């Protein structure tokens, strides 16, 4: 390493005088250095998404149509929301197998409270969110305080909450929920102007905060990423968000459920990277004993994280009810749980704890959703879908494991 480092720095310095080709050189060298240390970031999943989109587009020209992409957003809203909670749990190095059942139970509760008990929609939503959070906190406490492995506690939850879901739904099994406010969550679209305001505003805010951060670092005399890298990132994000709004606007507009998912991802991304609480999640996931000695209470962090996972499971359940205008015994069952976990992992959050990002929930859900959506368009049967999703999950975990090994190798 030491012998390689010196010439690389010299090259970077020289690159400043060589215009565009030099700038590209600096960018690729900067990235290469990070990748060699196993810091892959979102790169593998973005490459994967491009490959998947290219393949399906050549097979089925409607894949990238506005209508289908709009539909895709609605298809991933529930999975993505639940996957955000899974990301938090994975950051701790734990797993939550109960989120599917909790989603199902929450959807059943929502339906029954509104339809059978006549609760106002907002009160029912609040009750359901509180229930999800309470279930998560209960399981988290059982794990953190009693010491039963989270895998087992949430496996028990997986079975038990499904039972409660069936009990809540009663003999009819399905409750149709035609309440208009609930339906709007996953069936409405932002007016065009709002959609554009949101796209431009979000992209602008991101770009401005990125550059202010760069300028402040430079003023403070701290090392900064090469300007080309920051510029490239800005252009990419702005282009991506404007293109998304444009494409979605050509159909019905930006789906509300998509905005909710994006908002949750941004919120949890800020929570995990910019706050003490977020820092402590990473610390407990990396080395719980070190965190404890530094004055952090691992038990408190664990209980709160599992509670947030329960909360996000409830959000997923609500989106389900809205999309299907019904709560049934099937809601939250089947492959839903595993797709949520797979989304978090495929998106780049490590199964080994301490590494990952809320964005991986969105990216991973997009991968799973695209594959499922594309194979449906090609009229492939479910068995093919399962096999392809399994292969993608294996590939994602392999990338994670290999990156982990190269990080360990870079350490010496």
């Amino acid at each position, binding site marked *: 390493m030491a012998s390689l480092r010196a010439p690389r720095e010299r090259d970077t310095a020289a690159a400043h005088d060589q215009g565009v080709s030099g700038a590209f050189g600096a960018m690729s060298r900067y990235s290469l250095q990070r990748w060699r240390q196993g810091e892959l970031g979102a790169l593998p999943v973005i490459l994967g998404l491009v490959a998947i989109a290219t393949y399906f587009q050549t097979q089925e020209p409607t894949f990238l149509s506005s209508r289908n992409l709009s539909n895709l957003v609605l298809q991933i809203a529930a999975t993505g929301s639940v996957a955000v909670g899974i990301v938090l749990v994975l950051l701790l190095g734990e797993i939550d197998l109960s989120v599917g059942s909790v989603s199902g139970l929450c959807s059943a509760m929502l339906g029954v409270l509104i339809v059978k008990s006549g609760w106002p929609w907002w009160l029912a939503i609040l009750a359901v969110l509180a229930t999800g959070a309470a279930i998560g906190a209960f399981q988290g406490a059982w794990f953190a305080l009693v010491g039963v492995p989270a895998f087992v506690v949430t496996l028990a939850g997986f079975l038990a909450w499904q039972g409660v879901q069936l009990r809540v739904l009663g003999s009819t099994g399905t409750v149709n929920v035609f309440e208009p406010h609930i339906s709007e969550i996953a069936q409405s679209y932002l007016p065009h102007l709002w959609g554009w305001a949101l796209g431009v505003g979000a992209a602008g805010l991101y770009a401005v905060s990125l550059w202010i951060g760069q300028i402040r670092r430079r003023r403070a005399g701290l090392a900064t990423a090469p300007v080309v890298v920051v510029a490239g990132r800005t252009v990419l994000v702005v282009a991506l968000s404007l293109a998304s709004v444009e494409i979605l606007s050509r159909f019905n507009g930006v789906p509300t459920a998509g905005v909710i998912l994006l908002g949750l991802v941004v919120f949890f991304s800020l929570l995990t990277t910019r706050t003490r609480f977020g820092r402590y999640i990473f610390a407990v996931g990396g080395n719980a004993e070190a*965190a404890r000695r*530094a004055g952090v209470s691992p038990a408190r962090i664990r209980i709160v994280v599992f509670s947030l996972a329960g909360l996000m499971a409830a959000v997923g359940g609500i989106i389900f009810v809205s999309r299907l205008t019904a709560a049934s015994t099937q809601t939250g069952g089947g492959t839903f749980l595993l797709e949520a976990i797979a989304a978090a992992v495929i998106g780049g959050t490590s199964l080994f704890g301490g590494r990952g990002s809320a964005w991986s929930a969105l990216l991973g859900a997009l991968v799973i959703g695209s594959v499922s959506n594309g194979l449906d368009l090609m009229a492939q049967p479910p068995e093919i879908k399962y096999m392809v999703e399994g292969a993608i999950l294996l590939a994602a975990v392999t990338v994670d494991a290999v990156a982990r090994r190269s*990080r360990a190798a870079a350490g010496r």
Partner: protein
Amino acid sequence: MPGDQVTREGGGDSAASLARAPILQLRGISKRFGAVQALTDVDFEVYPGEVVALVGDNGAGKSTLIKCVAGTHAPDEGTIVFEGEEVRIHTPADATRLGIETVYQDLALCDNLDVVQNMFLGRERVATLVPRVVEPLSELEMEKRSLGVLASLDVTTIDNVRTRVAALSGGQRQSVAISRAVMWNSRLVILDEPTAALGVAQTEQVLALIRRLREQGLGVVVITHNLHEVFEIADRIVVLRLGRRVATFEHATTTPEEVVSAITGAREAAA
């Protein structure tokens, strides 16, 4: 939290005024675990600007003694005087509050966090936008302070403080752990086997860092098995054997043979 951070420079003059008095003084410390008498009537003292090597065979009571100071164990008998005042240290937090920091062999670093994040773990600086609700981390401030601390300790081997600790060498990791321990206005630093897992060049880095702590007026206690190292850095050498303090040597007036015979008990047998 930011309020209780005082810069190192602030502690400088008190170190000079206390130069004659011990920073830490233990008197008659005894500790028993069930049937095992781990420590018997041990006195121990550290002066500011001094490196004390605490040596002894396995089971001699070195770890128990430092754990009594670090707040992990409470002694059964005896008193602890810190900077002239009798104190009680019941928890690691008590020790930290007094300015006593311990770096254990496992270093207690989070591999997945970078150098800055580790140095400020549990004591992050935040900007308060909405008290107790919106308090984003002040990354810039923490990074600047980390760079400053590393520079003041001449730790030049870490060129990027945003590197994850997993990617650092053993010597770099030890340097991060020690730097973290001394950046919180600590007066006394206890190092448990700081070079046990290191190669020659990296051991040199860590020993140089320990000398710098001495120059800055801190009291330093080093537990080690390596006599060569003891003679390289220690001003005084305290030998424990079977839970008792059996000998104390001044660096200038002793030889490795004398120390070894004290550790093994050969000296007592001869006397």
